[in-house]
Protein backbone atom coordinates (compact mmCIF):
# COMPACT_ATOMS: atom_id res chain seq x y z
CA UNK A 1 0.00 0.00 0.00
CA UNK A 2 1.26 3.48 -0.87
CA UNK A 3 0.25 6.68 0.88
CA UNK A 4 -0.49 9.77 -1.22
CA UNK A 5 1.75 12.74 -0.29
CA UNK A 6 -1.34 15.06 -0.27
CA UNK A 7 -3.12 12.91 2.32
CA UNK A 8 -0.03 12.76 4.53
CA UNK A 9 0.02 16.55 4.54
CA UNK A 10 -3.63 16.88 5.52
CA UNK A 11 -3.41 14.38 8.35
CA UNK A 12 -0.58 16.34 9.97
CA UNK A 13 -2.94 19.26 10.78
CA UNK A 14 -3.95 19.36 14.39
CA UNK A 15 -5.24 21.68 17.09
CA UNK A 16 -4.82 21.75 20.83
CA UNK A 17 -8.10 21.88 22.78
CA UNK A 18 -8.42 22.97 26.40
CA UNK A 19 -11.34 22.73 28.81
CA UNK A 20 -11.57 24.68 32.07
CA UNK A 21 -13.45 24.67 35.35
CA UNK A 22 -16.89 22.95 35.36
CA UNK A 23 -16.56 22.07 31.63
CA UNK A 24 -13.24 20.36 32.32
CA UNK A 25 -14.93 18.30 35.03
CA UNK A 26 -17.97 17.48 32.85
CA UNK A 27 -15.86 16.48 29.82
CA UNK A 28 -13.45 14.64 32.09
CA UNK A 29 -10.43 16.00 30.19
CA UNK A 30 -8.40 19.17 30.45
CA UNK A 31 -6.53 18.89 27.15
CA UNK A 32 -6.96 17.07 23.81
CA UNK A 33 -4.85 17.13 20.65
CA UNK A 34 -7.19 16.75 17.66
CA UNK A 35 -5.87 15.88 14.17
CA UNK A 36 -8.20 17.00 11.42
CA UNK A 37 -8.45 16.92 7.64
CA UNK A 38 -11.08 19.48 6.60
CA UNK A 39 -11.90 23.07 7.62
CA UNK A 40 -13.38 23.20 11.11
CA UNK A 41 -15.22 25.88 13.00
CA UNK A 42 -15.26 26.04 16.78
CA UNK A 43 -18.62 24.29 17.10
CA UNK A 44 -17.25 21.38 15.00
CA UNK A 45 -14.20 21.27 17.24
CA UNK A 46 -16.43 20.93 20.29
CA UNK A 47 -18.46 18.15 18.63
CA UNK A 48 -15.40 16.15 17.58
CA UNK A 49 -13.63 16.66 20.91
CA UNK A 50 -16.62 15.69 23.07
CA UNK A 51 -18.22 12.92 20.99
CA UNK A 52 -21.17 15.14 19.98
CA UNK A 53 -22.05 16.17 23.54
CA UNK A 54 -24.35 19.23 23.52
CA UNK A 55 -22.40 22.43 24.22
CA UNK A 56 -23.90 24.30 27.21
CA UNK A 57 -25.46 27.53 25.91
CA UNK A 58 -23.32 29.78 28.10
CA UNK A 59 -20.00 28.21 26.99
CA UNK A 60 -17.25 30.68 26.08
CA UNK A 61 -14.73 29.95 23.31
CA UNK A 62 -11.25 31.30 22.66
CA UNK A 63 -8.74 30.71 19.88
CA UNK A 64 -5.13 31.51 20.78
CA UNK A 65 -6.13 33.43 23.93
CA UNK A 66 -8.73 35.63 22.19
CA UNK A 67 -12.48 35.28 22.58
CA UNK A 68 -14.21 34.08 19.39
CA UNK A 69 -17.73 33.17 18.31
CA UNK A 70 -18.62 29.47 17.77
CA UNK A 71 -18.55 29.92 13.98
CA UNK A 72 -14.90 31.05 13.97
CA UNK A 73 -12.72 28.77 11.80
CA UNK A 74 -9.62 27.18 13.31
CA UNK A 75 -6.27 26.63 11.61
CA UNK A 76 -3.43 24.18 12.05
CA UNK A 77 -1.65 24.64 15.37
CA UNK A 78 -4.36 26.73 17.04
CA UNK A 79 -5.16 26.43 20.73
CA UNK A 80 -8.94 26.26 21.20
CA UNK A 81 -10.36 26.75 24.71
CA UNK A 82 -13.85 26.09 26.07
CA UNK A 83 -14.94 27.38 29.47
CA UNK A 84 -17.97 28.46 31.49
CA UNK A 85 -18.79 32.11 32.38
CA UNK A 86 -15.90 33.65 34.30
CA UNK A 87 -16.07 34.43 38.02
CA UNK A 88 -12.78 36.16 38.86
CA UNK A 89 -12.08 39.42 40.70
Amino acid at each position, binding site marked *: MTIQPLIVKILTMSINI*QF*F*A*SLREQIGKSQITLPYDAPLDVINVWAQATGDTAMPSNT*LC*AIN*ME*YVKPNAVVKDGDEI*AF*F*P*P*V*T*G*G
Partner: protein
Amino acid sequence: MPAILLDRAFNPWDEIQDFQTNTLRPGQFGATASFVGSMRDFNINESVTHMTLEHYPAMTQHFLDTLCERCKQKFTLDECLVVHRFGDIQPGEPIVLTAAWSAHRADAFNACRFLMEELKAHAPFWKKEVTDAGERWVHNDQKPVNS
Protein backbone atom coordinates in the same frame (compact mmCIF):
# COMPACT_ATOMS: atom_id res chain seq x y z
CA MET B 1 4.79 44.76 33.84
CA PRO B 2 1.46 46.13 35.04
CA ALA B 3 -0.47 42.81 35.23
CA ILE B 4 0.78 40.37 37.83
CA LEU B 5 -0.54 36.87 38.60
CA LEU B 6 0.31 35.46 42.02
CA ASP B 7 -0.13 32.00 43.54
CA ARG B 8 0.45 33.26 47.07
CA ALA B 9 -1.16 35.70 49.49
CA PHE B 10 -0.21 39.35 48.94
CA ASN B 11 -0.52 42.64 50.76
CA PRO B 12 -2.22 45.04 48.30
CA TRP B 13 -0.95 48.20 50.01
CA ASP B 14 2.64 46.96 49.79
CA GLU B 15 2.10 46.09 46.11
CA ILE B 16 0.78 49.59 45.37
CA GLN B 17 3.59 51.24 47.25
CA ASP B 18 6.31 49.08 45.68
CA PHE B 19 4.92 49.57 42.18
CA GLN B 20 4.62 53.32 42.72
CA THR B 21 8.14 53.59 44.09
CA ASN B 22 9.63 51.55 41.25
CA THR B 23 7.61 53.04 38.38
CA LEU B 24 6.61 56.62 39.15
CA ARG B 25 8.32 59.76 40.37
CA PRO B 26 6.73 61.40 43.45
CA GLY B 27 5.11 64.61 42.20
CA GLN B 28 4.53 63.14 38.73
CA PHE B 29 0.92 62.21 39.48
CA GLY B 30 -1.83 63.93 41.48
CA ALA B 31 -4.42 61.17 41.79
CA THR B 32 -4.24 57.48 42.69
CA ALA B 33 -7.38 55.33 42.72
CA SER B 34 -7.27 51.73 43.87
CA PHE B 35 -9.60 48.81 44.47
CA VAL B 36 -9.03 45.62 46.45
CA GLY B 37 -11.39 42.64 46.23
CA SER B 38 -11.00 40.14 49.04
CA MET B 39 -12.61 36.88 50.12
CA ARG B 40 -15.39 37.32 52.63
CA ASP B 41 -15.77 34.69 55.32
CA PHE B 42 -19.52 34.39 54.97
CA ASN B 43 -21.59 33.58 51.92
CA ILE B 44 -24.86 32.06 50.81
CA ASN B 45 -23.85 29.11 52.88
CA GLU B 46 -22.01 29.59 56.15
CA SER B 47 -19.88 26.49 55.73
CA VAL B 48 -17.47 27.82 53.07
CA THR B 49 -14.01 27.17 54.46
CA HIS B 50 -11.84 28.31 51.58
CA MET B 51 -11.79 28.85 47.83
CA THR B 52 -9.83 27.64 44.83
CA LEU B 53 -9.34 30.01 41.93
CA GLU B 54 -8.70 28.20 38.64
CA HIS B 55 -7.53 30.15 35.63
CA TYR B 56 -6.28 29.77 32.05
CA PRO B 57 -2.73 30.95 32.69
CA ALA B 58 -1.56 32.08 29.25
CA MET B 59 -4.90 33.69 28.38
CA THR B 60 -5.20 35.35 31.79
CA GLN B 61 -1.82 37.01 31.43
CA HIS B 62 -2.57 38.02 27.84
CA PHE B 63 -6.02 39.34 28.77
CA LEU B 64 -4.77 41.41 31.70
CA ASP B 65 -1.75 42.78 29.79
CA THR B 66 -4.06 43.83 26.96
CA LEU B 67 -6.56 45.27 29.45
CA CYS B 68 -3.86 47.50 30.95
CA GLU B 69 -2.92 48.71 27.47
CA ARG B 70 -6.55 49.40 26.58
CA CYS B 71 -6.96 51.25 29.88
CA LYS B 72 -3.97 53.49 29.16
CA GLN B 73 -5.36 54.29 25.73
CA LYS B 74 -8.87 55.01 27.03
CA PHE B 75 -7.86 57.28 29.94
CA THR B 76 -5.13 59.84 30.56
CA LEU B 77 -2.92 57.90 32.95
CA ASP B 78 0.61 57.83 34.20
CA GLU B 79 0.35 54.14 35.01
CA CYS B 80 -2.01 51.33 35.98
CA LEU B 81 -1.64 48.06 37.84
CA VAL B 82 -3.55 44.79 38.14
CA VAL B 83 -2.61 42.04 40.59
CA HIS B 84 -4.69 38.84 40.74
CA ARG B 85 -4.39 35.70 42.85
CA PHE B 86 -4.94 32.15 41.71
CA GLY B 87 -4.89 28.83 43.54
CA ASP B 88 -6.06 28.35 47.12
CA ILE B 89 -7.43 31.41 48.89
CA GLN B 90 -8.37 31.69 52.54
CA PRO B 91 -11.20 33.88 53.91
CA GLY B 92 -10.04 37.48 54.45
CA GLU B 93 -7.28 37.28 51.85
CA PRO B 94 -7.11 39.76 48.96
CA ILE B 95 -7.97 38.27 45.55
CA VAL B 96 -7.53 41.22 43.22
CA LEU B 97 -6.01 44.70 43.18
CA THR B 98 -6.55 47.35 40.50
CA ALA B 99 -4.94 50.79 40.65
CA ALA B 100 -4.54 53.80 38.38
CA TRP B 101 -2.32 56.87 38.61
CA SER B 102 -3.24 60.10 36.80
CA ALA B 103 -2.88 63.87 36.92
CA HIS B 104 -6.61 64.17 37.57
CA ARG B 105 -9.03 62.29 39.78
CA ALA B 106 -11.73 61.56 37.21
CA ASP B 107 -9.31 59.58 35.04
CA ALA B 108 -7.88 57.73 38.04
CA PHE B 109 -11.34 56.76 39.37
CA ASN B 110 -12.73 55.81 35.96
CA ALA B 111 -9.66 53.80 34.95
CA CYS B 112 -9.56 51.88 38.23
CA ARG B 113 -13.21 50.96 37.88
CA PHE B 114 -12.84 50.10 34.16
CA LEU B 115 -10.06 47.65 35.04
CA MET B 116 -12.26 45.92 37.64
CA GLU B 117 -15.43 45.79 35.53
CA GLU B 118 -13.61 44.38 32.49
CA LEU B 119 -11.71 41.89 34.62
CA LYS B 120 -14.88 40.66 36.35
CA ALA B 121 -16.69 40.34 33.02
CA HIS B 122 -14.01 38.71 30.88
CA ALA B 123 -10.82 37.54 32.63
CA PRO B 124 -10.68 33.71 32.53
CA PHE B 125 -10.83 32.90 36.25
CA TRP B 126 -13.25 30.48 37.93
CA LYS B 127 -13.96 30.32 41.65
CA LYS B 128 -14.70 27.06 43.38
CA GLU B 129 -15.87 27.18 46.97
CA VAL B 130 -14.87 24.42 49.33
CA THR B 131 -17.54 23.68 51.92
CA ASP B 132 -17.97 21.09 54.65
CA ALA B 133 -20.24 19.24 52.22
CA GLY B 134 -17.80 19.32 49.29
CA GLU B 135 -16.87 21.66 46.48
CA ARG B 136 -19.03 23.81 44.21
CA TRP B 137 -18.35 26.18 41.33
CA VAL B 138 -19.43 29.74 41.93
CA HIS B 139 -21.90 31.23 39.44
CA ASN B 140 -22.00 34.90 38.56
CA ASP B 141 -25.47 35.41 40.00
CA GLN B 142 -24.32 34.22 43.43
CA LYS B 143 -22.16 37.33 44.02
CA PRO B 144 -20.01 35.26 46.32
CA VAL B 145 -16.95 36.86 47.87
CA ASN B 146 -17.12 40.33 46.46
CA SER B 147 -19.01 41.89 43.64
